[in-house]
């Protein structure tokens, strides 16, 4: 071999190596993605509030916008949108989105494009009380929906609405075809969903599986051939199924399995962008919790940092307010309000008239200071509350834990049959309003807390479009609530999704579950 030959050989080898590397990184078409979900109740996207249902439904249906990786709205059916004024939203729809065909409503090859009429129909279906949609409240700020032309739709709100494109609002409302709902009827549509999303329904076997095939005519061609949602009700079994290679993704990983999975090379863990708020709430109308001194003393009496570290390790973040990291109004400076000071707590309780009785337990007028903490039966929450109860008892407070079935717990909170309780977890952008505005007493405000100043701030913040301005208002309202010790914030709990390392371009769900979106297109390597 001459010099020339050698050079050309080396070149050839180099080219081959580079090509190989490029091939290895290139997305591969084909394959079936198996996903474990806890439950799938219905395929009617307007009649479910379950995020597991929605994980399936966001493959079958399109929404006007989707929620992107960074939590901001990204285009989906609408390619762009604009606000001529604070009340008006104009959405420009893509013209290449078609309803799934080959079904009872649209025979093969006889589909039609998704139009502004469909958007109007879908939003009005949710807004119609007869539909019984749990989203009605979320859209109630919409005054009317107008069709401008086939692919332009105008939405007018009653008041300025900064949250209109949020996950549970427009980014969560599926656009459905009128023909399908009317031909199939509510029970039929709930089983034979027909949408315009990247995957179409093949079959739904209740309590077993939902099988979806790729929609060849989707505006962005899915790389996967098929997606199967396997219904596995037990979280631990879902994790085992992932380890056994039966599924590629498990959408709910219990906190105590996270550390174990971290050590497994074959599995990748994805942490949710936002943490869910977890805290104790007071019913501020139940004695003795109607006294600020008692509430503050109880907050000072417990060592929350060590309790959270003990139960969660790194999988949760200590909370000092209700608004979580990554959301407008998140305020770490509230930390100063929550010192751990058992001595100070006892002093405050003494001021309130509680002194140690003959048995060493704190009492006032012969009555013990009794604190029963109600919680739903979820292992992590039960462990945290158990630790807090133990700490309170050591200080001479007659504390106990009441573990309740979730329906009972939720009813007790709403009826005010409470003193101190593990609170609701309304965590999104409007969570603060839900939990502390007096309008929501008896529903999501389980504290029976009514403060006109806070009400005014929350009402104003809810219609303030400018994020900077809203942040100031939101922080002020939050600080007032925390100074009133309506709650004892404990921690923000992150959700974990686990996926096989062969799953590429994966984005964990945030109400929308994007398998094929403007930002990503999931594929399986060999």
């Amino acid at each position, binding site marked *: 071999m001459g010099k020339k030959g050698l050079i050309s050989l080396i070149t050839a080898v180099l080219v081959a190596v580079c090509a190989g590397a490029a091939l290895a990184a290139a997305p591969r078409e084909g394959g079936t993605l198996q996903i474990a979900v806890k439950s799938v109740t219905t395929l009617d996207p307007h009649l479910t509030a379950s995020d597991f249902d929605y994980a399936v439904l966001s493959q079958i249906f399109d929404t006007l916008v989707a929620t992107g990786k960074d939590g901001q709205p990204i285009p989906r059916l609408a390619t762009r949108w604009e606000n001529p004024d604070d009340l008006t939203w104009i959405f420009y729809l893509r013209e290449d989105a078609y309803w799934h065909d080959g079904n009872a409503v649209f025979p093969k090859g006889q589909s039609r494009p998704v139009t502004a009429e469909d958007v109007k129909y879908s939003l009005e279906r949710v807004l119609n009380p007869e539909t019984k949609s749990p989203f009605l409240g979320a859209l109630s700020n919409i005054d009317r929906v107008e069709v401008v032309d086939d692919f332009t739709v105008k939405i007018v709100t009653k008041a300025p609405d900064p949250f209109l494109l949020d996950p549970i609002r427009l980014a969560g409302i599926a656009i459905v075809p009128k023909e399908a709902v009317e031909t199939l009827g509510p029970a039929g549509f709930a089983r034979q969903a027909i949408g315009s999303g990247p995957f179409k329904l093949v079959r739904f076997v*209740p309590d077993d599986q939902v099988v979806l095939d790729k929609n060849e005519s989707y505006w962005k061609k899915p790389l996967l051939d098929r997606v199967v949602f396997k219904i596995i009700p037990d979280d631990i079994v879902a994790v085992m199924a992932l380890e056994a290679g039966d599924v590629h993704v498990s959408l709910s990983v219990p906190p105590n399995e996270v550390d174990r999975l971290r050590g497994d090379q074959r599995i990748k863990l994805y942490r949710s962008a936002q943490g869910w708020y977890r805290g104790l709430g007071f019913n501020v109308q139940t004695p003795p919790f109607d006294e600020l001194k008692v509430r503050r003393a109880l907050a000072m009496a417990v060592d929350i940092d060590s309790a959270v570290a003990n139960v969660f390790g790194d999988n949760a973040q200590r909370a000092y307010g209700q608004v979580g990291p990554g959301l407008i109004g998140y305020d770490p400076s509230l930390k100063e309000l929550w010192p751990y000071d058992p001595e100070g707590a006892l002093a405050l309780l003494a001021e309130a008239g509680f002194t140690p009785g003959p048995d060493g337990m704190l009492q006032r007028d012969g009555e013990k200071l009794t604190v029963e903490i109600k919680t739903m039966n979820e292992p992590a929450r039960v462990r945290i509350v158990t630790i807090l109860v133990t700490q309170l008892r050591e200080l001479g407070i007659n504390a106990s834990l009441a573990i309740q079935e979730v329906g009972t717990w939720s009813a007790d909170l709403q009826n005010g049959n409470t003193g101190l309780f593990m609170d609701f977890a309304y965590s999104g952008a409007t969570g603060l309003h839900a939990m502390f505005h007096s309008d929501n007493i008896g529903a999501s405000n389980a504290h029976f807390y009514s403060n006109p100043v806070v009400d005014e701030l929350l009402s104003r913040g809810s219609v303030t479009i400018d994020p900077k301005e809203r942040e100031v208002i939101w922080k002020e309202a939050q600080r007032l609530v925390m100074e009133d010790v309506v709650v004892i914030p404990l921690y923000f709990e992150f959700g974990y999704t686990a996926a096989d390392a062969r799953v590429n371009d994966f984005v964990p769900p945030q109400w929308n579950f994007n398998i094929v979106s403007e930002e990503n297109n999931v594929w399986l390597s060999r």
Partner: protein
Amino acid sequence: MGRYIARRLLAMIPLLLGISFVVFSLLNILPGDPVSIMLSSNPHITPDAETIARLRAQYGLDKPLMTQYVIFLQNLLKGDLGTSVYTQQPVVTAILERMPATIQLALAALVISTAVAIPLGVISAVRQYSWIDHLCLVGSLIGISMPSYWLGLLLMLVFSLKLRWLPLSGIGYLYNGLGDVLRHLVMPACTLGFGMAALLARVTRSSMLEVLGQDYIRTARAKGVHERTVVYRHALRNAFIPILTVSGMQFGYLLGGSVIIETIFSWPGIGRLAVNAIMNRDLAVVQGTVLVFTLLFIFINLAVDILYAAVDPRIQYD
């Protein structure tokens, strides 16, 4: 016999009415309603008092208890068990869809447990206090006291995760071949059958011991009848009544769906349907499943009673 069966069937009516009323009242006494639970299941949705009240009215949950019950009975007479608040599906459909999975599992567990338990029980009785009797005693104790949840997970760890012989969970389908059905069935059926086999083996043993001490067994042996014939023809047949009773009861429970087994093995059966409905206060589904359970139980008891006559000619009805 015909009149006996007719009488038994007629007696079902007041029983069913009574049970449906008890279930209805219990669910209404329990705190929590489907609307609040549905809305509070999602941290993004913030339920306002107005939405809750409106939805409750639409589902007829605001009417007085007796009115709701009367409406339920009227629909029942038309064969309509109502519609699920959650899935929008008729309750009848929901139950019928899940019955085959439950029956498949129950039958498999029954076959496994009787095939294991009856021979073991007989051997334990015949060789009382031998090593095999002691072994069976220990095995039964373990079987009765071991939580099925734990056993199920253990089997999964060994046969699915480590050995990779069997699928971890889910049900098999005939269109994938009989092998697919059987491979999915083995672990849940064994888990379910094990506890039942333990109990059945003990019942068989004690019942056999009682019969083996009878005079006619001694007579048979004295006549020189082969020991095998003594045990299986003379003794076992006479010891069969308690065995049949226990199997019948157990089969009834199995048909009610084993919630725990169905949950860990992701088996789409009726037990999960019932428990989810109770958790969600999905009243119509709870009512429907309880009524079906009751009916199944009554029929199985009736079938067992009829079988008694077949096993023991001395038993006659009418």
